[in-house]
């Protein structure tokens, strides 16, 4: 079963077909990106596509940004192998959007211009708070980016049969370069269109497979579950209830609780999600975009539930675990079982497209934060002249970030860095969300409070990860031989999120500085009413 031949990843896969379908996707998106570049001139165009996308368009793009390869391949695979516990992830990922809808999206759209730091520093001392917010943005984006690029290496082994380290390095580099073309040429407009196309393909592909699987079982979910149990071996029955992955010990149970907290509070603090709210003309459109995102993401996760159990039933956990890529191969193997090499090729291409679109979104966010927050507002202290060179700096920042992502993706190739996604969510939940909520809703919140909660969140989260079983102490750790794993949980959210809220409070109460009441009045009125909010620039002509 295990292939010694280089040219077959998943058995029955046709690499030439997979690459051809993917090449068509890249070609079409590149044409669109070059067309988009014609109307990308100003800073607002580059960062926010002139704020001219509609709510539904941005909602589809948000789901494209959010549904990474990890949530497609990873969740479907986790359900196939662990059953119910895989489903738990998707619920956290979905419910999290209510935080964005109710508390963050519209208020952020009304007060900021380009980045998360715009809102956090609105009524604080610009230099220190912007720097802190930019550091947090870069940390979240880079960790997330690294996980995606690393995933690209694994995915080619799985789908194209490229198993040599050099071959995978070339693929990671190609992914990085195409992504950079999207960002540099198309700016936010091009990147958004790539995400829209990818989201439509991904959701359509998952829909077709879901109907196909259900059709095999007479559209009876219970029969499908029964068949998954029958193919699940001795512990098959456990697929239907929770506990197969996280129920082993009391530590793993706490770990799951911790993960659940980071998932639900992290989304509304992800900088690349927040930045998308600036691409629409008004708060009302920001609201509509979240509604579209919630519906699409919710439906998609219902699809993955069927796909996961479907893979368990039609492919079987043993075959999945024996395939290259293990858990991640569940959805591709299911596609193969259902529709042969052609459907597998389509799903493989969609998975690649997913990585491309997500890394492009992350790169533009990180580069915007560097250029707008650090370069223009901290180094040049908001000097008007520097605004003209802002896009140039952002483009160079994108190149550097792209190179870091390529090198990081190649260097970590073969290592399991799945924890980086959870880490990105944990930092977003601990450093960003408390600071955003305090800034928007708590009158007395000060610069000191902001700095304590941002830096506290970043440092505590990363610190706890370093001293967790992720890094040392266990067979699956990065350093299995060393032992400095005194923090038992792999997910730090349970500790870091409450601590960071507490730090924001203490910094405000204990710090010597007072809140700027005038600026708070302006921020509160603007955030709730949309007065003086950034307007959409008229398209093309400016």
């Amino acid at each position, binding site marked *: 079963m295990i292939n010694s031949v280089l040219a077959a990843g998943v058995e029955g896969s046709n690499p030439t077909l997979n690459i051809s379908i993917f090449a068509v996707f890249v070609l079409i998106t590149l044409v669109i990106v070059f067309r988009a570049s014609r109307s990308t001139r100003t800073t607002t165009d580059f960062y926010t596509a002139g704020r001219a996308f509609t709510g539904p368009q941005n909602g589809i793009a948000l789901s494209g940004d959010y549904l990474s390869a990890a949530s497609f391949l990873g969740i479907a695979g986790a359900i196939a192998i662990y059953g119910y516990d895989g489903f738990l992830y998707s619920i956290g990922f979905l419910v999290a959007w209510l935080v964005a809808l109710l508390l963050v999206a519209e208020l952020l759209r009304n007060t900021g211009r380009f980045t998360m730091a715009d809102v956090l520093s609105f009524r604080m001392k610009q230099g220190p708070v912007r720097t802190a917010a930019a550091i947090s943005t870069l940390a979240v984006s880079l960790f997330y980016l690294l996980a995606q690029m690393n995933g690209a290496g694994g995915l080619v082994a799985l789908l194209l049969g490229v198993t040599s380290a050099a071959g995978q390095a070339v693929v990671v580099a190609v992914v990085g370069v195409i992504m950079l073309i999207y960002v540099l040429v198309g700016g936010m407009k091009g990147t958004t269109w790539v995400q829209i196309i990818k989201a439509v393909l991904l959701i359509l592909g998952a829909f077709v497979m879901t109907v196909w699987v259900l059709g095999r079982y007479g559209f009876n979910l219970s029969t499908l579950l029964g068949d998954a149990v029958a193919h699940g071996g001795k512990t098959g029955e456990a697929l239907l209830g929770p506990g197969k992955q996280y129920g082993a010990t009391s530590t793993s149970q706490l770990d*799951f609780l911790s993960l659940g907290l980071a998932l639900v509070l992290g989304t509304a603090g992800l900088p690349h999600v927040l930045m998308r709210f600036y691409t629409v003309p008004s708060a009302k459109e920001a609201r509509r975009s979240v509604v579209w995102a919630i519906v699409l993401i919710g439906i998609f996760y219902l699809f993955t539930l069927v796909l996961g159990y479907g893979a368990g039933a039609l492919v079987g956990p043993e075959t999945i675990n024996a395939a290259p890529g293990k858990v991640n191969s569940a959805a591709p193997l299911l596609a193969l079982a259902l529709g042969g090499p052609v459907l597998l090729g389509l799903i493989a291409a969609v998975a690649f497209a997913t990585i491309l679109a997500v890394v492009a979104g992350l790169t533009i966010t990180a580069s915007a934060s560097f250029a707008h927050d650090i370069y223009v507002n901290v180094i040049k202290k908001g000097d008007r002249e520097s605004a003209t060179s802002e896009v140039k700096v952002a483009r160079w920042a994108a190149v550097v970030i792209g190179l870091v992502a390529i090198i990081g993706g190649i260097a970590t190739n073969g290592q399991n860095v799945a924890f980086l996604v959870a880490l990105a969510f944990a930092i977003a939940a601990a450093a960003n969300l408390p600071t955003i909520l305090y800034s928007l809703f708590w009158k007395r919140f000060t610069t000191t409070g902001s700095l304590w909660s941002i830096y506290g969140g970043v440092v505590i989260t990363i610190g706890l990860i370093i001293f967790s079983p992720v890094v040392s102490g266990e067979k699956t750790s990065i350093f299995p031989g060393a032992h400095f794993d005194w923090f038992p949980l792999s997910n730090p959210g349970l500790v870091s999120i409450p601590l960071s809220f507490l730090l924001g409070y203490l910094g405000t109460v204990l710090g010597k500085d007072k809140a700027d009441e005038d600026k708070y009045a302006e921020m509160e009125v603007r955030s709730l009413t949309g007065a003086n909010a950034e307007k959409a620039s008229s398209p093309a002509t400016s």
Partner: protein
Amino acid sequence: MGTTEDSAAAPTPAATDWKQVQASPEFTELRRRLRGFVFPMAGLFLAWYLLYVLLADYAHGFMSTKLFGNITVGLVFGLLQFVSTFVITGLYVRFANRVVDPAADQIRHEIEGDSQ
């Protein structure tokens, strides 16, 4: 709208007395109603989600109970999280369209009208 200015901010904020608007009855009423909706609702869905996570984490037997066929309590509970998310989304949109938008638009027009 209509202007093509890009990076320059909208009308100069200096013309607006933000503290005066903030203290106005129209604005305090808007803020009261918005917070009166979103805070309890956020508390509600977070508590409901936490209850679900705790049950899935610690009540394996209960969640694995079969209701009919192979459909377990846990599966129904999970699907209810989807339902509640969609319902809360719908409720908020209706509230925002009916209550928040008209009040916010009125205050915004007063501010932006004054300073131009």
